[in-house]
């Protein structure tokens, strides 16, 4: 068991012929991920790493029966790539691309909410179910199969946590990077719910950051719904006061989002909060 992806996931790669897309397609295949094809408009009919390339997600899905896609296209075209995947009815969309304009993501999110697709990201490292499949850019060799679910807003910090767990011999059920953008497809709550329902996941690591209110919502959700223990880490305790977007922004955000506030909320609901990334593994091991 695992969440979101496993060895039965049939993955296509949007942007498969680009530099990043190609590099990570090789890495994903090498890890054992069932990559069934790729999409690059205008390059349909080519073959990459033994996989067929299509011009459109629609045809790729029809031909390969893909149920997941990973997006490596540049920021300017990423929103369109996500919308194309939604339109083609792909169930799981993982967008690695960073730097999407926020206006694009507001529109994408609006469409997503009325669809049957799940988006993970953008600006995320993707998903890893150790020993089964990886979708995205996580370095697979730092993970090992086990029963800890990892969910994170940060990319590289996720690897820290996985690495530390693995070094202590603690395996992971699935690792989910939800991305750090202000508007994304999948929230902490969504993934916590999946882990709660996944019989193979016993404990959960949640890695948050300053800014926004996703961690606070996660704390409320944990109090209400979660039976499995959660260990959290929040990056940015020592961050200098950020440059605000302006006054209206400050009102909307209502001054929330400091590390101290998020840590306090987690502690209030019984979540143990690590002081350093290394401690995450210590707290899980206890």
């Amino acid at each position, binding site marked *: 068991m695992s969440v979101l992806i496993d060895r039965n996931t049939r993955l296509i790669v949007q942007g498969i012929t680009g530099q990043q897309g190609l590099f990570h397609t090789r890495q994903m295949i090498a890890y054992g991920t069932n990559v069934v094809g790729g999409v690059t408009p205008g390059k349909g009919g080519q073959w990459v790493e033994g996989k067929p390339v299509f011009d459109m997600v629609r045809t790729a899905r029809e031909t390969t029966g893909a149920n997941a896609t990973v997006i490596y296209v540049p920021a300017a075209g990423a929103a369109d790539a996500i919308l194309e995947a939604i339109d083609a009815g792909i169930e799981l969309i993982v967008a690695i691309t960073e730097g999407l304009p926020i206006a694009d993501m507001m529109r994408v999110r609006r469409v997503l909410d009325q669809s049957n697709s799940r988006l993970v990201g953008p600006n995320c490292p993707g998903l890893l179910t150790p020993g089964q499949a990886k979708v995205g850019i996580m370095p697979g060799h730092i993970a090992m199969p086990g029963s800890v679910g990892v969910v994170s807003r940060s990319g590289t910090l996720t690897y820290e946590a996985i690495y530390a767990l693995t070094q202590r011999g603690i395996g992971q059920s699935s690792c989910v990077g939800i991305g750090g953008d202000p508007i994304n497809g999948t929230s902490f709550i969504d993934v916590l719910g999946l882990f709660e329902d996944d019989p193979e996941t016993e404990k959960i690591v949640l890695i948050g950051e300053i800014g926004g209110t996703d961690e606070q919502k996660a704390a409320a959700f944990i109090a209400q719904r979660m039976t499995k223990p959660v260990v959290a880490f929040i990056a940015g305790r020592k961050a200098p006061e950020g440059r605000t977007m302006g006054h209206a922004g400050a009102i909307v955000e209502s001054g929330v989002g400091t590390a101290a506030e998020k840590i306090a909320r987690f502690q209030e609901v019984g979540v143990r909060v690590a002081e350093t990334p*290394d401690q995450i593994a210590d707290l899980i091991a206890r």
Partner: protein
Amino acid sequence: MNLHEYQSKFRFEEFGIPVPHGKVAETPEQARLIAAEIGGPVVVKAQVLTGGRGKAGGVKLARSPEEAEQHARAILGMAIRGKIVRKVLVDPAARIKQEIYLGITNDRAARKPVLICSAEGGMDIEEVNRTKPGAIIREHIDPLLGLRGYQINALALGIELPYALWRPFGKIATGLYKCYVDSDATLCEINPLIITENDELMAVDGKMSIDDNALFRHPDLAALRDTSAEPPEEIQAREAGLSYVKLDGQIGCMVNGAGLAMATMDMTSLYGEADGIGPANFLDIGGGADAETVAAALRIILADPNVKVILLNIFGGITRADEVARGVIAAFTEHPTDIPKVIRLVGTNEDQGRALLQAAALPNMSTAMTLADAARMAVAAVKGA
């Protein structure tokens, strides 16, 4: 990216929003000529990308061209919150009956733009939010549907705007939203939007922030960027595509990923705090940084005289460790230095990366396997330096 008041207001005007017909002066003489051209009282306003301008004496009323010149002389060159004033806006003075606040920003929790309006304009809207939250009206906008007429009515009602002004108010709100969308703005703010003594609406002050990620499709807006008051290292960092914030410590940090960069900052603070040691900067080289980007990052760090030790913390995902190693070697070959370097390199292609670093045999270099070790070693190196 933030726009100056004058840039924002000139852009608002393109979207049909009435603004005072002022001009920008870079010298006191220019200010006098503009005031003479306008005739009547004017306001001389410091153009600087920070708040607190009024309290710092950066906004002055002048009754004559000569007075405008004097004020401009005082304001130009003034430092407001560390930013030097290089331009003033000379606007005709408006006769104000009422001040309104009208702004649009993104509500990330709601995942929608939100229009914010208050009858308590002219003052700090955050202050209004704290003291009289009921005085603030919000309307969320469906990004696919746009701002609707009835939402504008709701705002007008909420601030008890006289009915005769609903139509011009609607045009301003519609124009502001269109400006927001067409500019890929994250903030469009009019404060105050005034009702003049002639019962006309006018945007007397304006502010815009543009989504940096969307600047690629707005070359006209990107060209408006004013870097005259920015620290040169931040300009360099932006041009190299790096996210950089200058801090007060001694450990120059280069990290991939914002979260890991923050954690690195947190850890060096944690271990160094007792000895007054901490990070010299926040520096995220981003997801796909190549050798050139890494070299640029190192140049920026090395330019900071406070830096005693360099801490590289790279966890290879999309950035391959061998690429990073090549960048590090290239940068230190370009700028050879004896400064202590603590390097932690793990993740994709880590073995090739470490092999390259070993082969290069950089002076004064040590390597760590964990972030905790790396932070401790960097703190120790500062103490030993």
